[in-house]
């Protein structure tokens, strides 16, 4: 039981998906997923702070299995900065999650850049819902990451969700040019994108994440587990890289 899912959500989203702690833990048991990063959804009332509290409560119920990430809306300026600080210092969260699509805030925009000063001070990684047109395309994530080389960023879906493959080369370039950007594997187009990246950028920056429940944890865990890589490379993606990034060993 060493698999760590770097990307799951708890709660009921205004965007029509959701899951409870019980459902998540039951599925993790069934799929032999030992640990998961848990993140709030954007709720019906658009108030993220109570959702951060709910995720913190969930982590308290299963502290060996869950790692909390904070979610804030960068457009809320100082309020977002204070909420992030509260989540890290008082709720024990280990990172920040930004969803530029659901919060409609381009990832290289001024509000996000302003938030990065707090991120730097707190020394936490930032996970970005990647690949969304106009707000989190690979080139936009690269723009932010190159401005803040001391911060570690994780681009979900490798920063590309396009079923024609037209975003693949930009995502590869982002990863090659920005050693502070990690790739998370959920919903990724073409499993061979992951396999082909290994000789180009190494194995250390690849992280398994499912983006459950928006994507299927049952399907997503197959991508790294069935990847045409060596057992040690698969283990790195499935948990070792994540634990090193989070400072667990």
């Amino acid at each position, binding site marked *: 039981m060493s698999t760590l899912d770097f990307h799951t959500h708890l709660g009921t989203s205004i965007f029509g998906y959701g899951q409870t702690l019980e459902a998540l833990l039951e599925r993790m048991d069934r799929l032999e997923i030992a640990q998961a990063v848990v993140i709030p959804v954007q709720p019906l009332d658009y108030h993220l702070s109570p959702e951060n509290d709910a995720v913190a409560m969930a982590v308290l119920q299963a502290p060996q299995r869950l790692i909390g990430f904070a979610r804030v809306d960068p457009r809320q300026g100082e309020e977002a900065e204070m909420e992030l600080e509260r989540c890290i210092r008082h709720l024990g969260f280990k990172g920040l999650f930004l969803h530029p699509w659901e919060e409609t805030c381009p990832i290289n925009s001024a509000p996000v850049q302003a938030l990065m000063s707090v991120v730097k001070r707190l020394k936490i990684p930032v996970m970005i819902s990647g690949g969304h047109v106009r707000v989190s395309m690979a080139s936009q994530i690269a723009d932010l990451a190159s401005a803040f080389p001391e911060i570690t960023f994780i681009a979900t879906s490798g920063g590309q969700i396009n*079923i024609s493959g037209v975003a693949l*080369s930009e995502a590869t370039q982002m990863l090659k040019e920005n050693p502070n950007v990690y790739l998370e594997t959920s919903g990724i187009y073409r499993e061979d994108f992951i396999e082909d990246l290994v000789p180009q950028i190494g194995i250390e920056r690849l992280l398994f994440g499912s983006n459950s429940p928006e994507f299927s944890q049952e399907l997503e865990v197959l991508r790294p587990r069935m990847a045409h890589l060596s057992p040690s490379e698969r283990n790195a993606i499935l948990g070792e890289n994540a634990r090193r990034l989070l400072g667990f060993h």
Partner: protein
Amino acid sequence: MYPIIDAHTHIEGLPGCDWQDPPELILRLLDEAGIARAVVMTYVDAPMEHEGYEPLAYVREAFQRYPERLIGFARLDPGHAEAPALLEQAVREWGFQGLKLHPFGYRQMPDSPDTLKLLRKAAELGVPTLFHCGDEEYTLPLQLERAAKACPEAKLIFGHMGGYFHVHDAIAVAQRCPNVWLETSATPHPERIREAVEALGAERVIFASDGPGCDPGIELKKVQMLGFSEQQLRLILSENILRLLPESL
């Protein structure tokens, strides 16, 4: 037992193409997954001006070398005046069994006069047309619907069934158009495949992987994990595509 057929895979030998996928690569992945046969096509459209490489000849050579395993679809650019004659020759003389269109590549709407002419030729020859159906202009389900209605005699397979964000549109179009089938490759939402089967019946949903980029083994498990009955699986994994091919007539 029935032979599992993968209705959408690729081979490519164009010098300089990023994706060099010889037929032996997809065959190896089919073997790993326990898939008996696959529909193959190139990533590039024919006809093309490239000295020493002819996409249809590459596909033809592959399915002639592996006649028990590979089924050829001709990927054509409808903008070329000779496309309908080329399709006729490919089907009647060379043994191709279908047409593949990727309108995002050649930048024509699915109901353009050139395209409709080619679709009518496919219908006249008794072969199905596999359309790329994703999240980009020219390939959106509601755009493909116009082609389905303008050419009701043509049998259209919507590859990727709407991609990441347009699956519900694809299901709605298939409900309105009895000449449309939905194909499961690469879309990351297994639950939407179940919705499609519930809305349309298992007779209208076809398994495919978009391999070798997408792993046929993972794509097969994506369909098998949904709890369909044996009869439903037999239709989705084998019988539906076979019924559309001229070899079954």
